């Protein structure tokens, strides 16, 4: 197994799938000549040419819709948003076209498209460039929503997303592109959609984390181990469809649940997980579910405020201790 970054893992996934299937193409702002704003598409133009690696104008609604139309007649587009903040301009095409085409045509069309790019906070880019939008997209039947947290998951899930016959919103994290990890060798390595992963086993408290909060939860678990608390970290990896069974099984074992997320709490994925755990494992809970979410405020620019707006290791430790009635 090679140790690579998430950036390289995503690059490998696209490269391998483009070699495998002539119908796969990548379109987005700065994906070709500039090699990607975050260099995720490095070298792809050189290998596949400008027919399959396409620099688009800054026209998110337009090229998102173009991708859906191309998918309707058999291509498998990968549409990159330079960041998911800009996908807000394209939501009409993602939600009203991609998510609903199959249903409202009575099953006549499949829409094999991936919308991908960085989601969530970056470093001091303020309110309009630091938004975690997974609860928006996860809200809609017809979409699948994926959030990898490791290089292996990033590669295996992206390959599965590209091969999938439905629209997949694939949410990366700008802060995490440089994170390293082991990735299994071989072009057949896939991670299935809709399967959660227990990133660390434990017995006293479950922490459900996704994307950026997974490494934070794992660090918090190390810290808590020193304090005599055994934490299980569950990463759903796919938000829709959600593998609630793995989460519920973990809660049945630990009887306590903390949900760590960088998105806002209100109407968020954490609220959904909390509700489902209540529905499926109410009698197993020894404490109310605790959500640790991004602050209920737009993202500030100032470094100190930005730090306060996001979950961190220290606050995850505190939350686990709280639901364990240790403080």
């Amino acid at each position, binding site marked *: 197994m090679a140790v690579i970054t998430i950036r390289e893992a995503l690059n490998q996934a696209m490269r391998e799938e483009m070699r495998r299937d002539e119908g796969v193409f990548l379109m987005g702002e700065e994906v070709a000549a500039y090699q990607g704003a975050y260099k995720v598409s490095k070298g792809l133009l050189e290998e596949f040419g400008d027919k399959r690696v396409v620099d688009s104008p800054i026209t998110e609604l337009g090229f998102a819709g173009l991708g859906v139309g191309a998918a309707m007649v058999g291509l498998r587009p990968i549409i990159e948003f330079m960041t998911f903040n800009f996908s807000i301009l394209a939501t009409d095409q993602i939600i009203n076209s991609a998510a609903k085409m199959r249903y409202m045509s*009575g099953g006549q069309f499949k829409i094999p498209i991936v919308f991908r790019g960085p989601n969530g906070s970056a470093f001091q880019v303020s309110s309009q460039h630091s938004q975690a939008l997974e609860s928006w997209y996860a809200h809609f039947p017809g979409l699948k929503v994926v959030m990898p947290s490791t290089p292996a998951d990033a590669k295996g899930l992206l390959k599965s997303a590209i091969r999938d016959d439905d629209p997949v919103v694939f949410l990366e994290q700008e802060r995490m592109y440089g994170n390293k990890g082991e990735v299994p060798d071989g072009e057949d390595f896939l991670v299935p959609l809709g399967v959660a992963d227990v990133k660390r086993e434990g017995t006293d408290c479950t922490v459900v984390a996704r994307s950026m909060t997974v490494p934070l939860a794992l660090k918090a678990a190390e810290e808590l181990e020193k304090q005599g608390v055994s934490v299980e970290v569950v990463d759903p990896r796919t938000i829709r469809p959600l593998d609630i069974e793995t989460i519920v099984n973990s809660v049945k074992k630990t009887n306590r649940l903390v949900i760590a997320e960088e998105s806002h709490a209100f109407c968020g994925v954490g609220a959904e997980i909390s509700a489902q755990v209540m529905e499926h494992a109410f009698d197993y809970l020894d404490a109310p579910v605790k959500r640790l979410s991004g602050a209920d405020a737009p993202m500030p620019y100032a470094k100190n405020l930005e730090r306060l707006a996001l979950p961190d290791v220290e606050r995850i430790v505190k939350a686990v201790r709280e639901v364990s009635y240790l403080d």
Partner: protein
Amino acid sequence: MSELKVTPMRPRTESEGASAGAGVAEERDARDRIDPAELREEHEQRHQEQLKQIGGVDRDTLLKMLYQMVLIRRFEEKSAESYTLGKIGGFCHLYIGQEAVAVGCLSALRPDDYVFTSYRDHGHALVMGTSPDEVMAELFGKIGGCSKGKGGSMHLFDADKHFLGGHGIVGGQIPLATGTAYATKYKGTDQATLVFFGEAAVNQGAFHESLNMAQLWKLPCIYICENNQYGMGTSLKRAMSISDVSQKAVGYGMASEFVDGMDVLAVRAATERALERARKEYLPSLLEIRTYRFMGHSMSDPGHYRTRAEIEKYQERDPVKVFGDNLREKGVLDDAGLKEIEERVRAEVEHSVKFADESPEPAPEELFTDIYANPIKPGR
């Protein structure tokens, strides 16, 4: 370019456009004063133009086009009737008055070309070959409908016929069509994509973003603005700073034409020219086809924003009647022939209602089918 570019019906330029606010009503009233002599002259000019064109199209095609126009007209009349009977729910946008646009454009297509349109889609579906039975059953919300009763009036689809749908968000289908054109070029075929939309969609970003990409990347997409002059109840003049839609193409370096949408053969000829650009050079085109809907925006529209005189002016140029009369004048068709078409259409429309009435409602399980092509049961 079409000779029709200089006809009196060409839209006013921006300098003649309406001012905002209270002055709008008076200005509209002034525009609606119709000079009968001028009108007669204009009608005669159009009459002669269509007569000239009839000779250039083979008889079978002419008769098929008339049949399709009559089919749409009668089908839509039946739709209106069924709506008032409560058999059709929701929104129902009729195509009466605009028949020449769908029939003229689509008569020029090959079966392997692709077509998108907006929610005013009954006519396009019928011309693309979706059976009246399946269209009516869809309007009735029945399983025998072309979209299994899940789409309704605004979302008719027929993948086999390359009819890629009726789309409900104004302008939403325009980027989709651009993508289909991208895909056909990607695959190296000479298929074209046609996308229909109303003039109100021209104010959407989706229109402008699409035209830019299509010309930039040379995509074989034909953008067809069915300019019926009203976006719901708001006239073009009250909504567009430069109301000459065909001129929008200039900003993108795209070929465009202004076409008389009450003349089915003028529509066909303009589409043929656009198709040649698409097939031979992968070039897009914008056609502004001036038409008029004789009915309200939807079945629930009382239509207070238009004068009787204005509607009557266009009804005198009823595209179905004019085409039928002209075919008779040129001896392509006699009274018996026209009666035969009317009889055939009447039987088909009656049958469609019977079929739709008898088709079962979708089974309750259908609520949760067709959401995903690859449904995933989560967990290992």
